[in-house]
């Protein structure tokens, strides 16, 4: 036993020694691995690629030839990363050579994306966020940055209201979710939530983004779903658009200089009658009008000549000096045929230039730039001149501290024109008679009564309406990198958006008439201060990587206005109110509001394939009542990168597949200040000041709440040469603010209450393909989205109808918000020439009891829902073709499923109801018994189908526009490097070159600017079309 035992022990010890030796040997098997990193496609070596030993942080970079060398042990994992390539992990085996071929990152999966208060790699994002590279927006010939985003993200709808320079736009992500509150997304520029409400007082509203830079944008991120936007709490419900400007970098200074010049013209025109057609048509209408009077009074046909006499008088008057009259004094014709539409427009010139410089070193990086733009616009007396300058410095003070500042100053001077519904709005000129010469014998502008309406050209010559807007954005931050993985970020931002207007209306203008001229001066200012403090903590628990943040944020905004007005000027040359004979009015206003929030987010990543994001924000606002001062807005989303699973490695055609789903609650507090307070307003008795109860308190008033489920997949095929995403969502907004009637014996008539609900659901699809690589390259990007809106509840009402006789947008439960509600036009009675409508009488169940039955009496026609002003389908397709230095990019963008109310057509397509010039289409009007036509008989002064609330004046708003075309040539660097030029590019860029539509008005991209809100949209009322623009430019880089 002992013997055996000793032997055994010897052997055992030997084994242990050998084994431990082996272990020691293994431990010592640190070896040098070398290898080459190269492109999987071209086999070209990749210089500067990173090679990291996973989990250690040890990193080396490849040299010019793509080679690296690194001490590793067998079994360790190397991570290869290179900008523009998919990263790759390779386990070190027995070989001393580890080569890595990296695929091109066609889908941008390795890019960092701003998710709000922090970045995350695109492949790891579980919400729905679109990133738009600034380079794609650089040369688009637009005046405001919002318009440049048209057709660049699924689910994002942007429509400019008309073709005035700096016109407002409607911006919506996944539809409208409000009635009285805003439906515009939150805009954040370099961390500052900016004031995005129009502040001007006179003329058409100015787009608040006019004073936001359009050049030097690094990227725009669009947070579409509520699980992403919940981190923005009480203001995230409409989505968030984050714009970041370009930063400096460490390296040689780069200077870029771009100049552009071009022109614009109206993209579409309408056809109006010429002088002969007008005279003939009006006479026919007058004859028929008289016959109607005869019939009404029971006289012999031909007895009454009232209409004919009136029209002959007017024709004579309207043609002024151009009248040709026979011996008996009867008007024969006019010597002129004026194209008034042509007089409303001009060919607009555009000039712009950008200069930027970027550079720095490891410690200090800077980026600076300035821009200039002048755009005359396509309407007479319209135009804009913009200037901006910006500067950004980032400084790494020490290992502990980073800090930085940025400042941008923007100024826009606008010659503003009136809103669309104003007689002085240029396009209202089309109402004038074509027989009227624009100028009289003395070359003075014709005016009333020679012109049938106020001659808007008088405003061009005798009105100046100068709006100067300024925006200063400043921010500063200091980051403390407290320890590995823990940093503390503090930031303050300041947005000063101000507006100065000087309007002066000469004594001949409509505003100045009868009071020797009129003028006013107005100033408005939105001052917005924000601050935030965020702790960021990156950690790892076992194999779960956690990125966490905890922060607090405040915003304080004050909105001030002041104005003064005066009249009785001794001369039109006196421009300011100081010279007014009578200062007739003045006022000033001030409002403050604030937000205060605390928030957190945890992003978890297990094995690089199981992803979870959890966020929450507690937010209070001055706009909420005391019973609901704070809201909690959580967001949760999860994702699974299936292609990271072992079992998927066999599926080689699938390069990326992620499924994701999320749920979030976000708020909307874009409504009035002090709506929750009991308020007293001032009111005098016998000129002694008094206070009267004006608003009853609603201490329960709170944010509108949006709950959204969002889910989808992201995919990549054939090494990501085909990539994209499909997302579906359902968002339900509840606690929608509505004005509710209350018994007036309380002393009040109504109060604003959280009581409605609106739902949007839809899907979004994005696809990017690399069709051809090599020296000739062809890429395609496609986006498509569908959204269905439904008003679920309007509190105690089923219908909100504020349209009166002229407009027909309503909110009705069960239908999309803003739906058109009016009489259904049934064409023309071929026996009588009467306009007909369907009676559409409904029984108690809402079923139409007499389908097809018509009436010629408008009042007997029941209103029905006739269409939706908001498109259900939106999409765009962008193709990029490049060959050697040439690149051609063109984008078609379109919408479908919406209708537009031609509200102005009740005047210009009224089959001769009044003396407005008519569209040529009215020549089709019913003439004799048996005529089959869609235009009723022309009858002066007799309403015959020209009632506005009728489907006669609805037109299909679907369109497909060749939105942007850019052709550029980059001169090969070999040629220019001798001249010390880094980059030389020549380009030509066009916008709105082609519009394919069945729309009958000027431009289907329209929403009359005097009446745009959640209910009223898709109205065309003498609204100018979008310009068609072509610019030529050159970029020089040193």
């Amino acid at each position, binding site marked *: 036993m002992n013997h055996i035992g000793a032997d055994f022990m010897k052997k055992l010890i030997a084994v242990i020694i050998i084994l431990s030796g082996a272990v020691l040997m293994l431990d010592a098997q640190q070896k040098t691995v070398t290898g080459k990193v190269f492109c999987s496609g071209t086999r070209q070596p990749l210089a500067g690629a990173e090679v990291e030993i996973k989990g250690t942080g040890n990193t080396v970079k490849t040299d010019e030839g793509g080679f690296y060398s690194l001490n590793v042990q067998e079994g360790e994992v190397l991570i290869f990363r290179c900008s523009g390539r998919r990263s790759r992990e390779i386990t070190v085996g027995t070989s001393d050579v580890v080569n890595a071929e990296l695929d091109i990152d066609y889908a941008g999966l390795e890019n960092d994306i701003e998710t709000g208060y922090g970045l995350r790699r695109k492949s790891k994002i579980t919400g729905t966020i679109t990133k738009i590279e600034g380079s794609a927006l650089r040369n688009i010939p637009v005046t405001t940055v919002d318009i440049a985003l048209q057709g660049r993200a699924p689910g994002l709808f942007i429509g400019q209201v008309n073709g005035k320079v700096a016109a407002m736009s409607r911006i919506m992500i996944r539809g409208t979710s409000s009635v009285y509150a805003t439906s515009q997304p939150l805009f954040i520029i370099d961390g500052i939530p900016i004031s995005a409400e129009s502040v001007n007082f006179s003329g058409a509203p100015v787009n608040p983004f006019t004073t936001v830079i359009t050049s030097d944008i690094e990227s725009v991120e669009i947070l579409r779903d509520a699980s992403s936007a919940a981190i923005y709490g009480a203001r995230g419900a409409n989505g968030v658009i984050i714009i970041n400007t370009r930063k400096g970098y460490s390296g040689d200074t780069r200077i870029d200089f771009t100049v552009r010049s071009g022109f614009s013209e109206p993209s579409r025109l309408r056809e109006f009658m010429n002088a002969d057609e007008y005279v003939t048509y009006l006479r026919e209408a007058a004859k028929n009008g008289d016959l109607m009077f005869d019939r009404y009074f029971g006289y012999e046909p031909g007895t009454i000549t009232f209409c004919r006499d009136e029209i002959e008088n007017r024709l004579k008057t309207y043609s002024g000096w151009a009248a040709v009259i026979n011996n008996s004094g009867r008007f024969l014709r006019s010597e002129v045929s004026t194209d008034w539409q042509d007089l409303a427009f001009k060919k607009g010139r555009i000039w712009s230039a950008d200069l930027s410089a970027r550079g720095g070193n490891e410690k200090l990086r800077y980026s600076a730039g300035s821009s200039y733009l002048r755009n005359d616009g396509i309407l007479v007396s319209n135009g804009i001149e913009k200037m901006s300058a910006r500067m950004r410095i980032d400084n790494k003070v020490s290992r502990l501290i980073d800090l930085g500042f940025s400042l941008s100053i923007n100024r826009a001077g606008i010659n503003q024109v009136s809103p669309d519904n104003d007689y002085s709005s240029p396009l209202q000129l089309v109402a004038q008679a074509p027989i009227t010469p624009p100028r009289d014998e003395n070359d003075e502008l014709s005016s009333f009564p020679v012109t049938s309406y106020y001659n808007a050209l008088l405003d061009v010559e005798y009105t100046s309406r100068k709006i100067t807007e300024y925006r200063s954005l400043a921010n500063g931050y200091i980051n403390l990198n407290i320890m590995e993985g823990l940093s503390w970020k503090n930031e303050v931002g300041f947005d000063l958006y101000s507006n100065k207007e000087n309007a002066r209306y000469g004594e001949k203008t409509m505003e100045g008439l009868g009071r020797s001229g009129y003028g006013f001066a107005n100033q408005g200012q939105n001052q917005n201060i924000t601050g935030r403090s965020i702790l960021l903590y990156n950690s790892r628990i076992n194999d779960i990587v956690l990125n966490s943040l905890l922060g607090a944020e405040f915003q304080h905004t004050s909105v001030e206005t002041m104005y003064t007005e005066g009249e009785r000027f001794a001369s039109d040359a006196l421009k300011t109110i100081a010279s007014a004979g009578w200062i007739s009015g003045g006022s000033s206003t001030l409002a403050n509001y604030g937000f205060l929030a605390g928030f957190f987010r945890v992003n978890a990543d297990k094995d690089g394939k199981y992803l979870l994001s959890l966020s929450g924000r507690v937010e*209070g606002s001055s706009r909420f009542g005391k019973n609901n001062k704070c809201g909690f807005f959580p967001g949760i989303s999860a994702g699974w990168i299936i292609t990271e699973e072992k079992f998927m490695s066999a599926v080689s055609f699938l390069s990326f597949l992620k499924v994701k789903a999320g749920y979030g609650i976000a708020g909307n507090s874009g409504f009035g200040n002090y709506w929750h307070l009991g308020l007293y307003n001032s009111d005098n008795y016998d000129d002694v000041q008094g*206070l009267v109860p004006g608003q009853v308190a609603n201490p329960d008033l709170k944010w509108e709440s949006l709950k959204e489920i969002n889910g989808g997949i992201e995919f990549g095929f054939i090494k990501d040469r085909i990539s994209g995403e499909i997302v579906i969502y359902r968002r339900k907004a509840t606690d929608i603010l509505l004005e509710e009637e209350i018994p007036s014996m309380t*002393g009040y008539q109504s109060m604003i209450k959280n009581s409605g609900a609106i739902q949007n659901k839809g899907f979004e699809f994005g696809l990017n393909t690399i069709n051809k690589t090599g020296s000739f390259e062809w890429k395609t990007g496609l986006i498509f989205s569908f959204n269905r809106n439904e008003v679920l509840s309007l509190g105690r009402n089923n219908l909100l109808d504020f349209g009166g006789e002229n407009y027909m947008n309503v909110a009705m439960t069960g239908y999309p918000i803003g739906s058109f509600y009016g009489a259904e036009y049934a064409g023309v009675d071929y026996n009588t020439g009467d306009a007909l409508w369907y009676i559409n009488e409904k029984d108690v169940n809402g079923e139409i009891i007499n389908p097809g039955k018509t009436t010629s009496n408008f009042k007997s026609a029941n209103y029905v829902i006739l269409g939706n002003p908001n498109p259900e389908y939106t999409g765009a397709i962008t193709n990029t073709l490049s060959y050697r230095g040439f690149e051609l990019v063109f984008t078609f963008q379109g919408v479908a499923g919406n209708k537009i109310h031609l509200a102005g057509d009740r005047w210009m397509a009224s089959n001769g109801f009044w003396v407005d010039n008519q569209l040529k289409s009215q020549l089709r009007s019913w003439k004799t018994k048996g005529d089959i036509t869609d235009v009723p008989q022309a009858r002066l002064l007799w309403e015959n189908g020209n009632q506005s609330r009728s489907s006669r004046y609805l037109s299909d708003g679907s369109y497909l526009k060749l939105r942007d075309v850019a052709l550029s040539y980059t001169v090969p660097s070999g040629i220019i490097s001798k001249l010390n030029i880094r980059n030389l590019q020549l380009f030509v860029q066009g916008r709105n070159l082609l519009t394919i539509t069945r729309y009958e008005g000027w431009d289907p991209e329209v929403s009359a600017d005097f009446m745009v809100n959640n209910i009223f949209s898709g109205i065309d009322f003498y609204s100018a079309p979008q310009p068609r623009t072509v610019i030529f430019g050159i970029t020089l880089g040193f």
Partner: protein
Amino acid sequence: MKKSIILTTVVLPVMAMLMTACDWLLEPEPSQSVSEELALTTDANVKSVLNGAYSLFNEPGIYGGNILRNAELLAGNGEIKWVNEETYYEPYEFFTKTISAENQEVYIQWRDSYRVINAVNNVLSALDVVKPADRTWVEGEALFLRALVYFDLVRFFALPYEAGTINNQYGVPLILKPVRLINDEIYKGRNTVEEVYSQIITDLGDAAELLPDENGIFATRGAAMALLARVFLQKGDYQNARYAANEVISSGKYSLLPAYADIFNRNEPTKEDIFVAKIAYPREYNAMTVSFSSSAYGGYGFIEILDGHINIYPSGDKRAEMFYMDNGALRCGKWNNIYGCVNLIRLSEMFLIRAECNLRLGPPYVGASPVDDYNEVHVRAGLPAAGSVILDDIILERRCELAFEGHRIHDIKRLKQSIGVWGYKNPKLVFPVPAREIRNNPALQSQQNAGY
């Protein structure tokens, strides 16, 4: 450990900073308006709210004129004509007694009345912050306004008060506390006519105690007494009416103007006016002038006077000279100043109330004999003094003296007369509760007036 220290040193100061910012950020005071909390916390503010109550009382829809116009249209039959039948049809419905429950003019009268009531209820709720020395008149004025408004509400929106019966017919909802919140408590139904009258009399009695004799254009003890006389007369309580009218006359604060025409179209009240609604130039307008006068005086001439009215005046009556021709239309010259005061209570009415009550009750007369009081008014109109009077003489004198000042319809109801085919209790002579109010208040749903 280190982390928790960092978290404490970093997070706590930040949180503390944010807490201090809380009020500034989350509770900013408005600038164009005053919050409820502030409006009723100082002496000066409460007085401003009282003045605000007057500005509401002065709205054109009520005492700025239209409450008188509505009364005249309701009484109109053969004496006046409303000319804008189509374009401005809602007042025309009063004239034709075909009022719809949706009539906006009815709604405006109801709404504006209750706005005054809510304002004065707010004043009454905050008397404790008023300087003790001023508390009496502040309370008195508030009570006076409330009584004035309720008296017109109950006269327009309820069947007439019938003396000697239990007046439990529907009156109007009595709201006596300010509304600060919209909760279940605000949905009140109608009180009875009796309850409303008794509240009015209580308020006026208190007001008369509290108010001073002189108070500028604001309510005085005389105004409260005079209104009380009118309320008692409407109730058929001649004893008290006589007493109250006598108090006003014997106070010596008021006197009849020698010339009848001088009373009207004045920018300031005269010695004869006991209470007026004052119209501020140029912001406001006298709504009676808008309806009654021609465009030469800033009116629209909606109402023309017919011969049927002129015929009631005896010849030589200077009051008939108030009427003038304007482009073929006869108009009432009492309302020719768009900025003139709306005469709400005048001294001559007090003489006529005292005369009527003395006559009805018989001797011993209070103050003066009926014929003397009658003659005070009658002779001023340029007519010979009467030797004796009967009730009909006094009633006719009221029609002539107080024509187109909003009295006639209430006299018809009080005297149980009729207007054409419409008897004094005809529901068509009572305004409907506005349909909007019934829609929005379940408590009113079964309480609409008969006939609507």
